[in-house]
Structure formats: C-alpha cells, structure tokens
C-alpha cells in the first residue's frame, strides 16, 4: 500500500523481485494457516482416515468426535473454569491498571517515570522462573487449587503489558476535557470515572483482549497451581486427552479445536484492535 510507485526499477529486476515477493508471502501463509486447517479438518475424520488419508477430506464428517470429546472428558467443566478464570482475571487486571494508568498518564508527581518503568519492565522477566515463589505464595494464601489462585496470578502477570497499553492510550486523550470538567466541579475520582475511563475504552478493549487470550491460553501456572477438576483449565484438559485417548487422535483433535474456538472468535471480531494495540505500543517510543 505505502510504496507502490517505488517499484519502478529496471524491468528484469522488478519481475524476479515481484515473483520472489509473492512466493515468500504465500509460503508463509501456508505455514501459518495450513496446519491449523489440517488439524480442524482432521478433527472431523475417523481415526482410520487420519492414519491412512492425510490429505483427503473426511468421507463422512464425524461430528460425534466433538460430542465424544466433551462427554468423555467432561470438557464443559474445564471450559467453565477457563471462562471464569480468564474473565475475572481480565476484569481485576483492567480495574487496577486503569487506576494506575490514569495517574501515570494524566498526573505529574515525583518518581512517575520510575514507577512506570518498574511496572512495565516486568514484561521482560521470564515468568516461568518464578515457579517456586508463586507456588509458595499461593499455598501460603490458602488458595491452592481454587479458581482464585489463577485469577489473582493472571491478573498480576498481565499488569506490565496492560499498564503499558492503557497508559499509552490515556496519554492521547486531550487534557482540556479534564480541565473543563474540573472547573465544572468534577472531583479527582469523577475525572477518572466520568471523563478519562469512557474515552479510554479502545485502549481498555485492546488490553482486555490480550489479557483474556493470555489467561485462556496459559499453561504453566495452571499446571502448577491447580490439581483437581474443580479449578483446572481447558489447556490442561487437552493434555489429559493425550493420556486418556492414547490412540484416539480424532477425539484429541476435536478437543483441541474446541479449546481454540473462543480465542479465534475473539480474534475474528477484534483483530483490528489487537493489531493496532500492538502497533501503537511499538511506534510510541
């Protein structure tokens, strides 16, 4: 889009470069999407077809693979847990980061930049390194194997990225709106709740989408901080399938496809927000 007219170099160079460009684009398109399509189509096959006809479409679309996947493993329970954990973690995360982002983006006070850097630097820490302390903290709080364990953990882990996205967005809201509201008698809290928060909705949606997808997909701490059906998430359910169905690949593929649906649906509706959020973060500097 940006540089159409710039391709006006000598003709032979242009044709080879042009061809190479499209080959690269299409090869990576295949790498990015074909395995997922293969997986989805395979989820509708019988086990025999999966093993003998890797490229063919299913002779009969086996919808019962999905029914079986849910009924045998009780997948719906894991789905419910994942929904509760991801939604509440996102809600808690957005609430606390919107408060902090508001003062970081809209107020001046000592150590403002230091505090912002300290909060956002967390994104570079290999979170997996903190297994021992997270486990100890969650056990000490008495919430091991409860939904609350993952809600608090995910809400906290996402603070660096959320604060970055939300405060970046809040800095773009014109200051005059708040000034006039203050003259009209708005309190500090009302400036947050009535003026800035509603205007920051796109930033909150982006951060919330990232947070929800992260929480839905997280595996390590779901594995470490829960042990029973009552708190475990869909990501662990997938793994349970591999041992449960040693040879039933159709059932496992169906389960994987089901667990992918929520985030893919979110992506279908919000991909512009996700991509523009990432983009805005990148070019701010």
């Amino acid at each position, binding site marked *: *889009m*940006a540089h159409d007219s*710039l*391709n006006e170099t000598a003709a032979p*160079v242009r044709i080879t470069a042009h061809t190479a*460009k499209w080959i*690269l*684009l299409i090869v990576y*398109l295949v*790498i*990015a999407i074909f*395995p*997922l399509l293969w997986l989805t189509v*395979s989820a509708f096959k019988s086990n025999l077809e999966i*093993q*003998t006809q*890797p490229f063919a479409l299913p002779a009969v679309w086996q919808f019962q693979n999905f029914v079986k996947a849910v009924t045998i493993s009780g997948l719906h329970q894991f789905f419910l847990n994942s929904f509760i954990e991801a939604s509440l973690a996102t809600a808690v995360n957005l*609430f606390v980061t919107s408060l*902090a982002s*508001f*003062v*970081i*983006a809209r107020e001046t*006070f000592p150590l403002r930049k230091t505090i912002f850097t300290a909060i956002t630097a*967390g*994104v*570079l*820490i*290999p979170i997996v*390194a903190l*297994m021992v*302390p*997270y486990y100890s*903290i969650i056990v000490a709080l008495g919430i091991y194997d409860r939904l609350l364990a993952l809600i608090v953990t995910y*809400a*906290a882990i996402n*603070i660096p990225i959320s*604060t970055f996205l939300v405060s970046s967005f809040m800095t773009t809201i014109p200051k005059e709106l708040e000034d006039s509201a203050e003259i009209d008698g708005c309190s500090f809290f009302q400036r*947050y709740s009535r003026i800035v928060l509603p205007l920051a909705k796109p930033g909150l949606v982006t951060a919330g989408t990232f947070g929800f997808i992260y929480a839905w*997909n997280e*595996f390590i701490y779901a594995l*470490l901080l829960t042990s029973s059906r009552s708190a475990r998430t869909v990501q662990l359910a*997938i793994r349970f399938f*591999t041992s449960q169905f040693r040879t039933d*690949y159709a059932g*496992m593929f169906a389960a*994987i496809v089901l667990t*992918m649906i929520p*985030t893919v649906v979110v*992506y279908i509706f919000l*991909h512009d927000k996700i*991509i523009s959020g*990432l*983009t*805005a*973060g*990148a*070019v*701010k*500097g």
Partner: protein
Amino acid sequence: METLRKRNQNTGWIILFLLPVLALILAFFIYPILFLLYVSFMEWNGIQPMSFIGLENFREIFSEDVFRTSIKNNVIWAMSAAFLQIPLALLLALVLTRAPRGWKFFRTIYFLPNVISLVALAMMWSALYNPEFGLINSILEAVGRGELTRNWLGEIDTALPAVIFSYQIYVGYFMVIILAGTMSVPREFYEAAVMDGANVLQQELYITLPVIRGIIVTAGTLAVAFALRQFETTFLMTAGGPANRTPVMGLYMYRRMAGLDYGKAAATGVLLIALGIVILGALQRVFGKSDAVGDSQQ
C-alpha cells in the same frame, strides 16, 4: 495556600490509585524475585524448615549434564529468536510494506496463530511430526522424497531443530510490531533514493533499516524474552528427550520442583533470570537501545 491544599488532596488520590497495582507488582514480581534468590541458597523440600547451604545448589546443578544441556538449549532458543525469528519477521514486514493489495489480509492471517495456545500448537505439531501418519512425512512421500522421512521428534539430530521450527509459527507477532515501523517511514525518503537510482534492496538497506532500527530492537528484545520463557513446547513435544537433548531450564526447574528439591529449582530460576539479563544486555550492546519497552512515556 489554595494550590498547596489541592496538591495534597491529589497526592492522597494518586497514592490510592497506584496502590493496587504496586501491591500486586510487589507481591508477584519483586517479592518473588527476592524470595527466589533467598531459596536458591537453601536446602528446602517445601515442608520442613529451610537450611542455608551457600552455593551448594548451584554447584550441584552445574555438575549435571542435563542442566548444562538445558542452559545451552535456552541460549539456542534465545539465539533462534534473535537471528531466525526476527529476520523472518523483518523480511515479511518489508515485503508486506511493498505488497500492493491485500497486505491487511496477509497481516491478519500471519498473526492468527498468536491467539492459539502453545499447548494446542504443540499437540498439533506433534501430530504433524508423527512418524506414522504425520503430515510432514506424508508430504515428503507424496513428492517422492520418501528417503527423507523420519521420526522428527524422536531422533537426536532433528528433535531440537524440529521443536524450534514449530515455534516459528508465532513470527506474526513480531512482524506486526516491525510493520508498524516500516509503514511509518515517510515515502519522501525513498523518492530521493529512487531518483538517485537506488534499487529496492539498497533502499531497504540504507533507508528503511536505519530508520526502524529501534523498533527491530524492541521486537528482538520481546522475542528473546518470550523464547527464554519456553516450557510448554518442550514439555509437551519431547519432554526433554530423546536422550536428554532438548530440555530447557524451565523444564529442569519443573522436574526439580516435582522432586521436592525447591532449593535447586530456585537456583535454576535465578540462573534463568540472570541468563535473560546477560543475553538482552549483550544484544543491546551490539544492536543499540530499543525504542519502546518500559520507556514510552516521553
């Protein structure tokens, strides 16, 4: 008097607004890192009281082959992020920037795998690499190169490359970040170069790359940080095998925890964080500072 009182009022609000986030940062980042460091000098099984043993945990884990392999593999993962994932992301971004139509479609599809969990993708790739019915061997046979088929995840030579290759499906994330930079380079920059007879390659090399260097470093920093977190992919695809060739520090740590040896698990965690600091620091020395990470509020 008036302004002073107003400032004092707001100071209370400011502290109140920052408090929840700072409390959570303290509880889930700062305290855990200090606790990790503390436990790394202790012998602890998680139940009985800890006892101080100095550097014994570090000495013991370093004496194990599987731990040294884990460090080496973490370095390979980090290098693959910096020198495989980022160049690939950059190449795709440069090409998309010059793609006439449909670039948004490509961008949307390239990013799609990033919303799917590592678990789902690891299981999917295990199936793709499956020696009996996996798609990769099937394709090789279909194109008449049956002699190349192998048990990709089960053979010593191919296991680690196969696992790392599967992770490249996440390139789209970094491509989107870099694309934000390439799209924002003013086109006048190129017009002058075109008049001087610069070809596309020269334009990218001498105009685009210097302008977007900071964004590439940002993307690279994130890519390395994410690669160092790798656990699921290895845990689910190879579990560290075959013959202990593919473990990473996260997996070693998990095994130590499962064996109730929290001291050695913590020592591993400390070294993983230290490794991240060393690698990210070295990359910054070589390639310069990043643009955005933790430093955006200008």
